């Protein structure tokens, strides 16, 4: 098995704060791997160590089988990174952003030009190549950041919250592009806190919180393992229902004005509840990754 990323007992401390506290995982070639977690969970810190931006405090970190501590330049030349913050060069045009970035990778100017054209076509921005990047919308900028990350034809694409702050249209466009790259066999590592994004793009993922990995698995498996098939949500649940749920020993979460019941097996629980306890405000829906996420990381606000 060829591993693109091998992370073992990775730690990063900032003074007292343990931002990443003993994380281990591997990413195989061609795999799309997600790091999920609430804000401040240590996702960005982890990937920053992987792309050689931050030095690790301890642990072992190999990318393409190379050690990050002494072969970071070789590693970085084969990675493409979309950082969370917009770091496009506002002093340059759309096209120049790609061509100037190509220089940082020692790409010759003729092949840089060719590559720039291909990428501008890929993100459908050819007609705006001579505009300033500051004139682009948020969605277009993100597509350009993606194109820029692909300028060196990377063997690994790292995306830090690729669609945060985008409108649904732009988000779906970015997803389509990423799916296209995925189907070409590109290895992708991404962080996100959009569960829909993770479920759609990730072959495998880990949920991290407080610098530690809580679970690892395929999205569908995690849903099945931790939540089940379906979820019943009851708004303003009557006390009798709460008592009954407790008596039946059903897996549930009581949020005071809202009761969430997890259904692991196929049964007529929903039928029973609606007939006996609820007049309204009772919904049955499929379990999602978001249920897993909230169940494992809690519902408290972060930061």
């Amino acid at each position, binding site marked *: 098995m060829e591993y693109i990323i091998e992370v073992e007992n990775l730690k990063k401390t*900032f003074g007292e704060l343990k931002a990443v506290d003993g994380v281990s995982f591997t990413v195989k070639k061609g795999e799309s791997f997600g790091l999920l977690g609430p804000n401040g969970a240590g996702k960005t810190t982890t990937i920053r160590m992987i*792309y*050689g*931006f*931050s*030095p690790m405090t301890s642990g072992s970190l190999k990318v393409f089988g190379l050690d990050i501590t002494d072969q970071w*330049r070789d590693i*970085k*030349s084969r*990675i493409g*990174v979309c*950082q969370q*913050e*917009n*770091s*496009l*060069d*506002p*002093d*340059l045009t759309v096209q*120049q952003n790609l061509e*100037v*970035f190509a*220089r*940082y*990778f*020692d790409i010759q100017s003729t092949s840089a030009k060719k590559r720039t054209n291909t990428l501008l076509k890929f993100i459908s921005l050819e007609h705006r190549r001579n505009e300033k990047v500051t004139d682009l919308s948020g969605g277009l900028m993100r597509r350009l950041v993606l194109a*820029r*990350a692909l300028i*060196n034809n990377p063997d690994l694409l790292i995306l830090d919250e690729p669609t945060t702050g985008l409108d649904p249209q732009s988000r779906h466009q970015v997803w389509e592009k990423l799916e296209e790259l995925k189907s070409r066999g590109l290895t992708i590592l991404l962080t996100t806190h959009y569960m829909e994004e993770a479920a759609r793009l990730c072959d495998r993922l880990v949920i991290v919180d407080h610098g530690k990995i809580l679970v690892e698995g395929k999205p569908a498996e995690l849903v099945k393992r931790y939540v089940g098939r379906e979820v019943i949500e009851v708004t303003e649940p009557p006390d009798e229902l709460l008592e009954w749920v407790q008596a039946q020993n059903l897996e549930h979460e009581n949020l005071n004005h809202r009761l969430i019941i997890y259904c692991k097996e196929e049964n007529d629980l929903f039928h029973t509840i609606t007939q006996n306890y609820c007049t309204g405000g009772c919904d049955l829906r499929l379990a999602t990754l978001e249920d897993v996420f909230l169940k494992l990381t809690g519902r408290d606000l972060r930061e």
Partner: protein
Amino acid sequence: MIAINISGRFIKVWQRNFTVYRKIWKINFLPPILEPLFYLFAFGAGLGALVGSIFYKGSAVSYIGYIAPALISINMMYNSFFENTYSSFVRMYYQKTFDAMLATPLSIEDIITGEIVWGATKSVIATAIMLFMISFFGIIQLPDALLLLPIAFIGGMAFGSVGMFFTAIMPSIDSFNLPVFLFITPMFLFSGTFFPLENLPSWAQKAAQILPLTHLVNMCRAISLGYIKPELLFDLLYLIVFCCIFFPLALIRMHRRLIK
């Protein structure tokens, strides 16, 4: 550790800045073209009429001939210092240009080296344009004065390095007022720029010897007026030492600021 991380790739950062510079070269060329004209007109025609000539190394020199090399020196300082303070700070802090570069094979040391070398390059470009303009006045010795071009690079490296050091430690862009007011402005006035240092009290003359601009002015003036002497190597050495102190300091502090 820091020395190991500097590679020839720093030139890519230089190229990036050059690409941006070329886009608006007409605007960039304007200050070094107009500034000497303004100054020479104000000081030469206005003040020079009052001052008359100044005794320099035993012979009388017109006032504009006396200050022209100082104006060039000041511009060497300004171009690199301001490039590596305000402009570099904008790229680092607001535009996240360095963050983007750090996701490529560039190291932070490559980036900072490229920025400082670029600042020095701007000093050279400004010097070349000013020399060209001033040459029409017949007040500098050519081709001797062409030596000012390599000197502009060394001076640019020195002032760019100290500028970058400030960029690494400044919390915000407004903080630059402090080094500008306490470091740049006194040099502008008291480095033998507009009047001979001998006119100052002796303690001030000694203090002026600490200022790097004093040495840059001394060297540029001697060369421009045709007094190329071995003593000038001392001034050159001073600037090189100054650069050798602040260049690594800038790298260390920038590393500490950005690599977390």
